[in-house]
C-alpha cells in the first residue's frame, strides 16, 4: 500500500470499529429481551410473591408487612389434625399421591420398557399406545377417568352386569378415597413417558456387556438385576426428578377427576394456594404456600440441574 492511502484509512478504521462494536454486542442484544423477560416474570415475580407472603394481604395485595406470621400459620396448620386443616390435608394428600405416583410410574415404566425390549413383534404398534395419554390435557384425562370410575355408570356397573355383584368401587365419589383416583389417572397419564425414558436407556446399553454376562452363565433375570438395572441409574434419577416435579405441580387433574375438588377432599398444595388466594381472600397465606411449593421444587431441581450442567461443560 502507498502512503496516500493512510489518511483515508484512519476514518475508515473508526467506522469499522464502531460497526465491529455493534456486531460484538449484537448477540447479547438478541438474547437480552428473553433474559430480561425471564428475570422479571420469573425471578422478579417470585420475589414479589415472597414479599406478599410477609404481608397481611386479603382480597387485594397490599404491603403492610407483618413478618413471618403467614408461615407460622401454615406451620401450626401442619399439625392441626382434628379436624384436619386444609393445609394438613394438602400435605398428607401430597405425600400419598406423590409417593404412589412416583413409585408406580417407575415400576410400570421400567416393566413395560423391559418387556418391550425383548425383541418382540409389534413394538411399533404397542409403544404409541402407551404414550398417547401424554398428548391429552389433564382435564381430558380426568374427565375420562371420572366417567370410567363412576360407580353408577362406569366400572362398578359394568362388573355388576357381568355377574360380579359384590364388586364395589366408589372411590371417585368418596371424599376419603378421591385422591387415589387422581393417582390412578396420573399414573395412567405418565407411566408411558417413563417407559420411553427407560427404553432409550436400555437401547443405549452396549450389547457386548450383555454377551459377556451370558458367556459367564448369567440368567436373564440375573442379567437384569445385577447388570442392566444398575446401569440405568442415571435414567432412574432423571425420571424420578421429573416425576417429583410433575407431582408437586399437579393441579388440573385434581379438579377434573374429583369435579372441582368438593369440600377440599383432594386438596393439594396447588389447589390450596389457588383457593386461599382467589376465593378465600387470604392472598398472603396463598403466597406463603406458593413459596413453600417453590422451595420444595428448588430443593429437588437445583442440585440436579447444577450437576447436569457441570457434567456437560466438563
Amino acid at each position: 500500500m502507498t502512503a496516500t492511502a493512510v489518511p483515508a484509512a484512519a476514518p475508515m478504521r473508526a467506522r469499522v470499529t464502531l460497526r465491529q462494536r455493534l456486531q460484538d454486542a449484537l448477540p447479547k442484544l438478541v438474547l437480552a429481551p428473553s433474559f430480561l423477560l425471564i428475570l422479571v416474570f420469573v425471578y422478579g415475580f417470585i420475589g414479589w410473591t415472597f414479599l406478599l407472603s410477609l404481608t397481611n394481604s386479603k382480597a387485594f395485595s397490599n404491603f403492610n408487612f407483618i413478618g413471618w406470621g403467614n408461615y407460622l400459620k401454615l406451620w401450626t396448620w401442619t399439625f392441626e389434625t382434628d379436624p384436619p386443616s386444609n393445609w394438613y390435608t394438602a400435605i398428607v394428600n401430597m405425600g400419598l399421591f406423590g409417593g404412589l405416583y412416583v413409585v408406580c410410574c417407575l415400576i410400570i415404566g421400567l416393566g413395560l420398557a423391559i418387556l418391550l425390549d425383548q425383541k418382540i413383534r409389534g413394538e411399533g404398534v404397542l409403544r404409541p399406545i402407551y404414550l398417547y395419554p401424554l398428548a391429552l390435557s389433564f382435564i381430558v384425562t380426568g374427565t375420562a377417568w371420572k366417567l370410567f370410575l363412576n360407580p353408577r355408570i362406569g366400572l362398578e356397573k359394568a362388573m355388576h352386569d357381568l355377574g360380579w355383584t359384590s364388586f364395589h368401587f366408589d372411590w371417585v365419589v368418596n371424599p376419603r378415597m378421591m385422591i387415589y383416583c387422581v393417582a390412578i389417572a396420573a399414573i395412567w397419564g405418565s407411566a408411558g413417558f417413563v417407559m420411553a425414558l427407560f427404553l432409550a436407556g436400555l437401547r443405549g446399553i452396549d450389547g457386548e456387556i450383555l454377551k459377556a454376562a451370558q458367556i459367564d452363565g448369567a440368567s436373564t433375570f440375573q442379567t437384569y438385576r445385577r447388570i442392566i438395572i444398575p446401569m440405568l441409574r442415571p435414567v432412574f434419577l432423571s425420571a424420578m426428578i421429573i416425576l417429583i416435579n410433575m407431582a408437586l405441580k399437579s393441579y388440573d387433574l385434581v379438579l377434573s377427576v374429583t369435579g372441582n375438588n368438593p369440600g377440599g377432599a383432594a386438596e393439594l398444595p396447588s389447589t390450596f394456594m389457588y383457593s386461599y388466594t382467589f376465593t378465600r381472600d387470604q392472598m398472603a397465606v396463598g403466597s406463603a404456600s406458593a413459596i413453600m411449593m417453590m422451595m420444595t421444587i428448588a430443593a429437588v431441581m437445583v442440585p440436579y440441574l447444577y450437576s447436569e450442567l457441570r457434567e456437560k461443560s466438563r
Partner: protein
Amino acid sequence: MSALNPANAAPMPARRRSPWRSRVVIYGLLLIFAVLYLMPLVVMVMTSLKPMSEITGGNMFALPHDLTFEAWAKAWGTTCVGLTCAGIKGYFWNSIKMVVPAVFISTMLGALNGYVLTKWRFAGHRMVFGLMLFACFIPYQSVLIPMAVILGKLGYIGMNLKDMTGYSFGFGNATANLVLVHVVYGLGFTTLFFRNYYAAFPTELIKAAQIDGASFFQIFRRILLPNSAPIFIVTVIYQFTNIWNDFLFGSTFAAGDNAPMTVALNNVVNTSTGVIEYNVNMAAAIIAAAPTLFVYIVAGRYFVRGLMAGAVKG
C-alpha cells in the same frame, strides 16, 4: 447350559430369544397394558355416540345400539358453558387464536437464544442459561399473583387507551394476555431445545462463514435455519401441546367467553346444575383432545423426541 461353553455362546444374539412360555407371558402382559391404556379412550368415544338412556341404563363397555352424533353436535354448537349456551366452538377458536402466535413467537425467540448461547458465547453465558433452565421447572403458583396484578394493570391501560383513541391496541385483551404468559413461561423450554441442538452443530462452519464476512443474522438465516427443521418440528409440537393443554393460566387470566378450550371443557363437565349429559361431556372432551391427538398421530416420533429433550436436561 450351553452358555457355559464359550464356543457355543459366542454367536448368540446379544439378548437371547426366550423359550415360548416366557414369550406368552411377555406378549400377554404387554397386551393387558395396551387394553388398560386404550380402555378410557374407547369408553369415551363409545359414550359420546350413545343416547343418554343407553348410558344410564346400559353397560359402558357395550357398543352403541342406537348410534347417534347428536351429542357431538350439541357439544360443538348448543351446550351450556357457564351461562351462555352456544357450545364449545367459540372456545376452540379462542385456543387456536392463543396457540398459534404463542408457539410462533416462543419458538423463534428460542432459536435465536439457542444460537447465541452456543455460537456466540460470552462471559456468564452458563449463568444466563442456568437461570433460563430453572425457569422451566418453577411451580406457576409462585408467579400467579404478580402476573394477575400486571395483567390487571395492562387492562387498565387498555381501557384508558380506548377512551382516548377508541382502540385498546391489544392491551387487556385476554388472548393477547395469554400469548404473553405462554411466551414468557415457554421461553426456557424452547431455548433449552435449540441450545442442545445447536451445541452439536459444527462451530467450524460458523467460523468459516464469519471469516467470509457473514453477519450475525446472515449466519443464522443461511446456515443454521436451513439445518434446523427437526428441532423446529420438535419445539413447535412440544409448545403446541403444552399451551393447548394448559389449564392453570387459562382459568386464572381468561374468564367467561375468552376462556380457552380446556377451561370451557372443565366448565361443561363440572357444572352442578341440571342432569349430567355424559355423552355431551365426552364429545366435548374428545373435541378438546383432537388437535393434540392429531399431532401425536401424525408426528409421534417428533412428539416423543420433544418429551425426552424436555426431560434429560442440560
